[in-house]
């Protein structure tokens, strides 16, 4: 067996999160950074996203996925302080940060890190969607699988398509299939509002006259060998199909775009506590998990709709991981004590009314940090309060779009006035609202439906 190698900062995953974390770690003074990436190339999921729409915030330019990735990749590749392991699958991570990975030439690789950044991204959700009643013919794919078939392998998985779920990947694929000469018959969404970004609804569906059926779902899959059609039905407010509303649509393909879920097998292996709402680790403003020295960023932490925020979050994690690694070099025992004190002092932020989740979930009192949150339903106008302290007002909020709010010193002052000493306390973030009435849209009145 190979002997255990050492590194200051180990980064698991070489997508946009891993890349930005590595560069930030080097800038912050890490001497030896290691990226472990299971694919043969860097860039993560961006490599299959050939549409543009990446980097508007960060570079004020509309880049394609691969272009965005190449804003980072060359810098990582030419830095002698970053050791790159491609074709390297991490199989295990211990809470003491011993990493076990496999590589075709090196066999089993063991790595001991001083600090670790988790950047494994996410996978597509299929749960539930695959217990749709009916047969199990060929022709049911997740949208990302279809994206890979078309964009990377160069094959069309179907010609007449129905898409279940209005997540961004499904919307992007509705456009891709149409441009490839296939016919997208419908996008079917169980909620009364779309799951994807407004700009994708406009640019991928409305521009191509693809009907979007809200408050509807696929209730049966038909076909023996290959999909021959689906039945879609409207649902009531408990998301149960309404009898008698079933409608048959002939198609050869059903794409599922029903959400993404952080890829957290390794986090679980290291006993890192996860947040049931985000599906990712519980972290503080440094993106440090509850296991000292292990940090997380990007889609493995919570599902981002914009890669720009992924890079930003990864920089926070990479820099903080480096600070941790360098301080740990002094004296281990002392560092452990410090870690304990540090964690005990943090306040815990819980999502309150109308808030689905908030990240980070823990904050060092006084920290000037950005809070990221998602709301539970579309709302016209809201006011956000942190334990009674007003933070901001927002208009036209939707669950699909992540909100970002800066916590400033005056917020902390107000919090202290209300609550006294904040150490170890629990506070909640609420959104006071006037919700828009979620109206059920009949198929005839659906946006984009053809006459």
């Amino acid at each position: 067996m190979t002997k255990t190698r050492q590194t200051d900062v180990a980064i698991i995953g070489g997508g946009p999160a891993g890349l930005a974390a590595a560069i930030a770690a080097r800038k912050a003074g890490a001497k030896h950074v290691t990226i472990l990436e299971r694919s043969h190339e860097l860039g993560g999921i961006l490599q299959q996203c050939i549409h543009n729409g990446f980097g508007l915030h960060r570079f004020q330019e509309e880049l394609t996925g691969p272009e965005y990735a190449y804003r980072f990749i060359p810098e990582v590749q030419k830095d002698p302080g970053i050791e790159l392991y491609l074709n390297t699958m991490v199989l295990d991570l211990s809470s003491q940060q011993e990493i076990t990975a496999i590589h075709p030439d090196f066999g089993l690789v063991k790595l001991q890190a001083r600090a670790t950044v988790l950047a494994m991204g996410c996978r597509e959700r299929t749960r539930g969607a695959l217990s749709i009643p009916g047969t199990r013919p060929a022709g049911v794919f997740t949208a990302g699988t279809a994206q890979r078939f078309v964009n990377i392998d160069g094959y069309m998985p179907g010609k007449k398509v129905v898409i279940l779920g209005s997540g961004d990947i499904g919307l992007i694929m509705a456009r891709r299939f149409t441009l490839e000469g296939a016919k997208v018959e419908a996008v079917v969404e169980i909620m009364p509002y779309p799951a994807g970004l407004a700009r994708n609804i406009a640019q991928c569906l409305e521009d191509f006259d693809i009907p979007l059926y809200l408050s509807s779902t696929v209730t049966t899959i038909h076909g023996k060998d290959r999909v021959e059609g689906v039945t879609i039905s409207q649902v009531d407010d408990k998301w149960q199909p309404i009898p008698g509303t079933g409608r048959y649509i002939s198609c050869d393909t059903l794409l599922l775009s029903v959400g993404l879920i952080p890829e957290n097998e390794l986090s679980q292996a290291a006993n890192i506590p996860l947040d049931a709402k985000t599906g990712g680790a519980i972290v503080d403003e440094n993106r440090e998990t509850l296991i000292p020295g292990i940090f997380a960023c990007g889609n493995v932490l919570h599902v981002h709709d914009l890669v720009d925020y992924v890079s930003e979050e990864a920089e926070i994690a990479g820099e903080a991981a480096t600070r941790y690694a360098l301080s740990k070099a002094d004296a281990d025992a002392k560092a452990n004590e410090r870690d304990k004190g540090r964690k005990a002092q943090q306040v815990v932020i819980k999502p309150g009314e109308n808030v689905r989740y908030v990240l980070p979930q823990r904050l060092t009192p006084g920290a000037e940090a950005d809070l990221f949150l998602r709301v539970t339903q579309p709302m016209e106008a809201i006011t956000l309060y942190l334990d009674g302290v007003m933070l901001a007002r927002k208009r036209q909020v939707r669950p699909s779009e992540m909100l970002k709010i800066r916590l400033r010193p005056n917020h902390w002052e107000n919090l202290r006035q209300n609550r006294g000493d904040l150490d170890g306390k629990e506070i909640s973030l609420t959104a006071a609202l006037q919700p828009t009435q979620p109206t059920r849209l009949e198929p005839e009145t659906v946006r984009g439906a053809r006459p």
Partner: protein
Amino acid sequence: MGTKTHYDVIIIGGGVVGTAILRALSRLQLKIALLEKQVEIGWGTTKANSGIVHAGFHSTPGTWKAKLCVRGNAMFEQLSDELDVPFWQNGLMMVARTKEEEETLRHYYQQGLENKVTGMEMLDAEATHRLEPNLAPEISLALRAPSGGVVAPFELAMAQAENATANGAQVQTGLRVEDISHTGDEFVITTDDGNTWTSTYLVNSAGLFADEIAKICGLEIEPIIPRKGEEYLFDQSVSDLITHTIFPVPTPKSKGILVIPTAEGNLMIGPTALELPYKDDVTTTAEGLDEIFSFTQKLVPRLNRRDIIASFAGVRAGSPTGDFIFDSSHSGKAIHLRGIESPGLTAAPAIAEHVLKMLAKAGLPQKEKPDFNPRRPKVIRFKELSDAEKEQVIRENPLYAHVVCRCETITEGEIVDAIQRGARTVDGVKFRTRAGMGRCQGGFCTPHIVRILARELGVTPLEITKRGNDSQLLVAEAKEFLKGGKLHD
């Protein structure tokens, strides 16, 4: 193909029963072949069932089911060891909630004793909940049979076929038997490719279709009664809820709806039991799920519908008599197995023993092969290896360092091995390796499996199917639809 060779025995149907018979026959110095209509072995009822190796207390004493189930159960440990098939003796528990059910439970205990089921015990509420803390608190009494277990049924059929093949048997998939005649001392079997096969003896283990084959052979019989069962699989994250296979007190029609820890490590609930006029209806239904879920929640309240990741349905070859039926025709030279419903999987090795005895009586020579090897070479399951073993296999074959299925940690090495062992389709790879059976249900690995299959089989990805016939995954090369300059037709 096939027309020249004369076989001693031809078996029709490559389910767990047909392959068990094939393997048992491969011990003898005979020329034997098995014909299966599907693209791969084990895709009939064998692919879609509960996978339970029953203890034998369910069956009425004196029946074939009782005898062959208990005997089959006793054979499983050695069988699974020889063939390297996942088998886990997790034990069965039948549970009662009311005084009335407790009475019935005691009846099954007595029945088990009569059937010579070993090791059974009755557990009071406390002992039951100590073993299974997540069972519903109302459960007041349990019958525990430690000899019961679970097996991966498809892997068993496949392993039996592989081992028989290694010992000289021939397996032909993708060929449906359409006609059988008997001339002189020979069966002449016509398959759907127009070829004929000849043999001296014939075994009809065509499962649901055994009645039709028996009719072709001139038997006047009552038809098989197809009975569908739906099953639902949970994500591995909830696997720890239950250890034993949990049975309710049975109904007259079936063993009831169960909670099953599968040999692969997922919990499963099911099956329903619905008589239907069709043999090929493997659809799942919203009603089926509702029935199963509301029932099993009464056994294990912590089960959550959200954790279900997959579903399937299988059809039982319901017996018109309620028992397994062993008919013969042509002076015993043709044997017809009908109504091999549950516990047919458990009984399969014992059914094979019994069929061999019947064939011997009809004159089949019994000379053993001196070089018969009962062992199937161990299949590498990368995830289960120690660090040192992992290092070793990667050094020998770097394809084992490429993880294709992330959910189940299945490597390219294992997939190539499965193809070399006979996988021809995405489902064939999936059932052999578990690639695509985890929580993302093939979302990530399907394109990779298609690519590997195409490469290994020397075809284009367009020819790769999910499970044979017209189940292609890809319909055209990208840009193909744009040729001729018009969008959609």
